[in-house]
């Protein structure tokens, strides 16, 4: 309909679509190779049918709902999420182009293998939107449309009646178990089928798009925004249109009972990128937010550490070559290189730098701090020297307060929303009654809670901890100097600390063991644990992930030393 090219043969603009989904010129019957599979992110419940394959879309069901497919639901969700990201400052390109195209590609890839086999019949799942009812029909935007699914055997021509009857057969058998047409089939699908869409995967899509555009948002930021409610995830189905009824198997698909886990979202993203045959992502250069030099600056600020530490992080980054575009950029499908988690990497670099400067063996750092304190007494010019002890006190205090608050918030988290869901009509009245009881009880005990205001959603912020140099209480360490703990040697400032201890002598095999190293708090010094805990909190991930990354960096840094001696002790001279 919106394909406005002139026909190569007859120069007319009069196109139709073959059963195989290709354009053909009605005037001269020239069949092109161009297929129509463009997807709009809008869902429109259609009333008129395009009878390309003479498929019929069943009209209103008895409960006022319409037919809808699971992927339409996910499409809506992605749209909502993209809108939320745009509201957070992400560029509009993400929603309009990048995410859109990724999704389209995904549908293509999966629909090719997507085949309902009820009673041996192949069915085309079809939903068609009429262009005239389309809201955004602007020429530049991808025009509104339909999903076409190709049946397995492409040459298969179906007659009108058999096709119509097969559609209705599917609807009848599945509509009992789910609001969507293919809900039950969706779940029963062959396990070998790769990458069936799930709720966590919506975030994988989002992150993939963000990464493609090199937006200044890490995966941990994204997941944190989700947890804080700035990006719809839990109960996002309540934004489905009225007519999209959700019940039965749909609940298993769309209702989440747990927060997305970093590892899961990340790994799915990698799988997805490979599955979609995406090329190498745009390069991560040193001017990108995700580059370790940039990110570590951000984390240093957030952790209230001196700016001067940035020199050191850059040095480490350079030394082990993790600042190279080739290292940092995602190449889908490349299993030989270990993929980069930018946030974890930057945090780990900082941890290594802290170990380099302060050793963090529960002994040396305090000595050094006392030493700096002494020097501070005589220090009249310039800024104060950085004292680890002072920093520790300030940070521990803040961290404890924040952690406690976070724990309480998590305990108070409300998972249900206004919209009620039930597995079947039989359960409906019971569910309604239960909901009524819950509301009553909540009111009753809410009154007894005293004048506690409902927790307000925090404003979305990139920084969880912020420190201002204007504070006169000296609680901001950004401007502090490291001179107090450095010494001059051969005209250069080097660390006073000559030693280093490795977190692990040998790295495990990730594939066999699942981890590169094993982190147990009792095995490591308290100061080290503290620093790991700090970043674990900021990134909202398990401490062991950061620890793993620290181990990897250390092994790269001390590679030569490690390779030289077959046996050594864990203390090393730098």
């Amino acid at each position, binding site marked *: 309909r919106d394909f406005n090219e002139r026909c190569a043969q007859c120069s007319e603009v009069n196109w139709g679509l073959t059963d195989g989904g290709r354009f053909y010129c009605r005037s001269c019957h020239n069949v092109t190779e161009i297929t129509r599979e463009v997807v709009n992110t809008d869902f429109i419940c259609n009333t008129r049918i395009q009878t390309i394959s003479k498929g019929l879309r069943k009209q209103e069901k008895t409960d006022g709902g319409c037919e809808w497919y699971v992927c339409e639901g996910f499409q809506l969700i992605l749209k909502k999420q993209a809108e939320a990201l745009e509201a957070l400052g992400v560029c509009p390109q993400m929603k309009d182009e990048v995410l859109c195209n990724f999704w389209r590609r995904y549908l293509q890839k999966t629909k090719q293998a997507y085949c309902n086999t009820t009673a041996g019949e192949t069915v085309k799942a079809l939903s068609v939107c009429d262009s005239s009812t389309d809201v955004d029909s602007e020429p530049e935007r991808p025009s509104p449309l339909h999903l076409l699914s190709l049946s397995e055997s492409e040459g298969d021509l179906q007659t009108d009646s058999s096709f119509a009857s097969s559609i209705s057969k599917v609807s009848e058998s599945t509509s009992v178990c789910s609001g969507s047409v293919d809900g039950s089939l969706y779940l029963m699908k062959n396990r070998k089928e790769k990458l069936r869409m799930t709720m966590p995967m919506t975030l994988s899509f989002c992150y993939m798009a963000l990464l493609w555009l090199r937006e200044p948002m890490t995966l941990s930021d994204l997941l944190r925004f989700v947890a804080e409610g700035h990006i719809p995830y839990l109960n996002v189905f309540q934004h489905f249109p009225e007519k999209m009824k959700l019940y039965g198997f749909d609940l298993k698909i769309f209702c989440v009972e747990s927060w997305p886990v970093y590892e899961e979202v990340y790994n799915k993203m990698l799988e997805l990128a490979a599955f979609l045959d995406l090329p190498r992502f745009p390069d991560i250069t040193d001017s990108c937010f995700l580059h370790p030099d940039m990110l570590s600056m951000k984390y240093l600020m957030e952790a209230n550490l001196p700016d001067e530490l940035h020199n050191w992080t850059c040095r480490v980054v350079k030394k082990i070559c993790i600042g190279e575009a080739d290292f940092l950029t995602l190449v889908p499908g490349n299993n030989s290189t270990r993929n980069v988690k930018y946030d974890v990497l930057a945090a780990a670099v900082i941890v290594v730098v802290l170990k380099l400067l302060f050793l963090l063996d529960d002994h040396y750092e305090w000595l050094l701090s006392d030493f700096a304190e002494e020097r501070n007494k005589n220090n009249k010019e310039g800024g104060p020297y950085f004292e680890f002890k002072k920093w520790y006190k300030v940070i521990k205090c803040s961290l404890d307060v924040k952690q406690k608050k976070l724990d309480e918030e998590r305990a108070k988290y409300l998972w249900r929303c206004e919209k009620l869901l039930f597995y079947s009509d039989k359960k409906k009245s019971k569910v309604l009654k*239960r909901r009524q009881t819950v509301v009553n*009880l*909540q009111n*009753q005990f809410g009154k007894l809670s*005293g004048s506690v205001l409902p927790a307000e959603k925090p404003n979305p912020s990139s920084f969880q901890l912020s420190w201002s140099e204007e504070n006169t209480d000296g609680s901001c360490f950004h401007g502090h100097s490291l001179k107090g703990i450095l010494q001059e040697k051969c005209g250069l400032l080097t660390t006073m600390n000559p030693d280093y201890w490795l977190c692990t002598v040998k790295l495990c095999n990730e594939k066999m063991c699942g981890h590169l190293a094993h982190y147990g708090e009792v095995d490591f010094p308290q100061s080290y644990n503290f620093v790991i805990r700090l970043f674990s909190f900021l990134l909202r991930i*398990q401490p062991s992930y950061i620890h793993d990354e620290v181990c990897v960096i250390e092994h790269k840094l001390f590679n030569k030393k490690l390779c030289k001696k077959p046996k050594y002790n864990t203390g090393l001279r730098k």
Partner: protein
Amino acid sequence: SSHEYKLNFKKSKEMCLSYIQDAMLQKQWKRAAEFLTFYIESLEKDFSREYTSPSEVIWRIGTEILCHHSHSSMKEFNSFTEQMKTLGVKRYLKVCLEHTFHLLCNGLIDEAYRNLSLAESWRFGEQTVIQGKEMKLIKAYRGLLDYYSWSKQKNILLEHGQDGFEDLSVEQEMHGCFRKAAVNLKEIIKIPGVWDLFVKCYVDLLEFYGDHNEARQVLNEYAYNSKFPANPNAHVYLYQFLKRHGESKKSLISALKILHDIVPSHELMIDFNIMLQKSKKRKRRRLGLEVIFAVLDYAGWKENVKAWSCLARQVKQIVISEKHLDWIKQEWNSRKDWWPAFHFSRYLAKKNWQENESLSYEKALVAGILLGKDCKYFKYVSHHGCKTQAKRFRILKKFVNKHNPVYVRISG
């Protein structure tokens, strides 16, 4: 502690629950109520595979909070409990029972009665059968409340009787209550268990209407049926009944003997000893000695003058008669290692003397006989006692001195 950043519904609610529990332990009722508000949504079936029913937890926690919270009222409590009744059919009768208890504790007896009557008429398919035990309890408690009404009316009648008034309607009501109470009380005490209060009330009813045989049978069953758990009170009730009705010494003694076996430190053991001491039968006197020694094994009796005087009297009597010294020897054998420190230390001598002369007198006699005139306790008390010029102490001293050889024979 490592903080889990994975969070799911189940874990989130577990955390919430632990916050509630902490707040309750610290009596921070407002905070507990606050967190309970967030916990309540777990009543809705979650979509994960496991389904755990938190409704019992919510019921119990909610009850606790409402009991203690300063802004809570009986009305709130009632409304909450009604909701809990509808929430879990399997728990319906249990909730009714607890509701009743709460009402009773707050003095709302009529309301409690209404509650029980309502619960009694509840029917719910097979649940009625499954919750049969609770139903029996409900009937039993209603019977108890009927007894309570009966008791009140009886008192009214007695008062009126004194004033010379006759009140037929009250009397009829009273009889009605009796019938209702008797039926239910009788039922519940058939089931093996501890039904002290119910038994007492039932026996009271039976005695009033002159059915002593039934009463005796009930008490015997309660005390002697092996299916029932061992319950000292059962024997106490039986004993008291027998005593009231002037039964033979033999039956009284057999009732108390069992009590001695179960609870040697029972307060009735004093009466028991007195009864046994007076007996002509040797066996009984022997038992008496055993009983009183056993009583004084317990710390609660250490400073009881009556107990010591019983022991002293019996020991004295035996010593004077010079017969059955071996009884004392037998009893003392298992006690000679620890009674001296337990009862007869110098510290106790001083303490007893300062606080209670009579106590020290009785104890000194026993100590003098069991441990000889040179023991710390006797020396101290007798010394101070004689100083006060009290006649009895001089007599005591003479007595112990005279019978010192006994000690030698006992301690060997």
